């Protein structure tokens, strides 16, 4: 995929997530499409594409809707870095792979975010956040699974989890 399409994808994702997709909030939480797309790019496209998408999306969120610069930029970059390591040891064609990656990616995001907020003394008690985080993990896993399965079929030419292919 050409870099300009990745940049366009990051822009479209940011615009839609900050506007139209706000309609899909459940329990005050909405799915994080940046995590979902960054993981899919890291697993099924190239590392460069995944990093470009993660850094542009992170920078946009930090500039327009963040409390400080660099937080999302760093966390999304870190998620891609870790997913690239994980996909080396995981079988990408197993239907459990996207479920695991989406869940672990979302957990890493919130864990690192919590740590950063803790160090700047701006953290929120976990008791107030667990329902939102749990809802986000569930939504990311569900949405991520379907998008991953669709992209996997387009890239590899057979269905995700089809071991007879």
């Amino acid at each position, binding site marked *: 995929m050409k870099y300009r399409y990745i940049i366009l994808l990051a822009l479209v994702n940011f615009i839609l997530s900050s*506007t139209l997709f706000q*309609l899909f909030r459940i329990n005050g939480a909405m799915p994080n499409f940046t995590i979902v797309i960054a993981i899919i790019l890291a697993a099924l496209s190239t590392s460069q594409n995944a990093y470009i998408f993660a850094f542009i999306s992170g920078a946009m969120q930090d500039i327009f809707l963040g409390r400080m610069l660099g937080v999302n930029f760093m966390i999304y970059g870190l998620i891609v870095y870790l997913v690239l390591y994980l996909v080396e040891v995981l079988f990408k064609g197993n239907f459990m792979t996207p479920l695991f990656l989406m869940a672990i990616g979302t957990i890493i995001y919130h864990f690192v975010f919590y740590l950063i*907020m803790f160090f700047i003394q701006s953290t*929120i008690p976990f008791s107030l956040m667990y329902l939102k985080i749990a809802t986000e993990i569930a939504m990311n896993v569900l949405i991520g699974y379907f998008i991953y399965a669709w992209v996997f079929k387009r890239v590899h030419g057979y269905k995700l989890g089809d071991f007879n292919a």
Partner: protein
Amino acid sequence: MDNRLKKFALILIGSLLILMMILSFGGRDRITFIESKLGSLLMPVQRFFTSIGNFVDEKTEPIINVLNYKDLNENLALENEALKEQIVNLTMSQKELAELTELKRALKYVDSDAQIGYVSCNVISKDVGNWFNMFTIDAGVNQGINKNSTVINGNGLVGLVYEVGDNWSKVISIVDQKSSVGFEMLRVTDDYDGVLSGTTNYELIGELFDPKASVKVGDYIVTSGLGMYPKGILIGKIYEVVVDKDLILNKIKVTPVVDFRKIDKVMVIPYVEKEVDQEGGE
């Protein structure tokens, strides 16, 4: 060597990012030219999609809430009765106020609470993450908005301008944690003061400065004028008073009058630094 260089680059980038986070925390007084222009470029597209979202939300809300209408009607009828009583009391107060204003004019008293102009604008995008409740509006420096300007809507206090671009601004809402608001009771007598902070779950928790303050559920609170916010803006209604003997100060839990899930239009009162007048008016 290649690996060592990679590790060094990673550590360097990480350190730079941490430095950037520290420097930008609390909101910058001025954002860069590129950020400002990029925001102005994205603004029309975001405004378009937000208006579609608001339209869909408006049309689907009656269908989603159809089962709650009976309760809503009963509550509104009760509120209506209470408001009628309030109108009678307020009309009496209004007459008194008119007389006092006339007296003030006759004595040439200096008015210190001159009302400042509003800037009306639209909410164009909302926070993508789930930790904070920040959003952007389609007005900035060019429309007269500056950092720490107060953001309100038709119902009451919404938040504070965090960073400002040429034609857009970033707003932090009062329901965000660490967003402190000085408040007082909306009462004629027993004017208790305190400080409120957000909880991210669309509610506010406050502490009253007076340990012997007597407040009750259902009382309304307004901004006290201490801190960034101007005096007298409605914040919310007390729904729980926490009386704990171990705590020195009494705590209150407040439901904001503003529905933060559905803010689409807001008004901004530009921030004016208060000058301490030692002499006072005579």
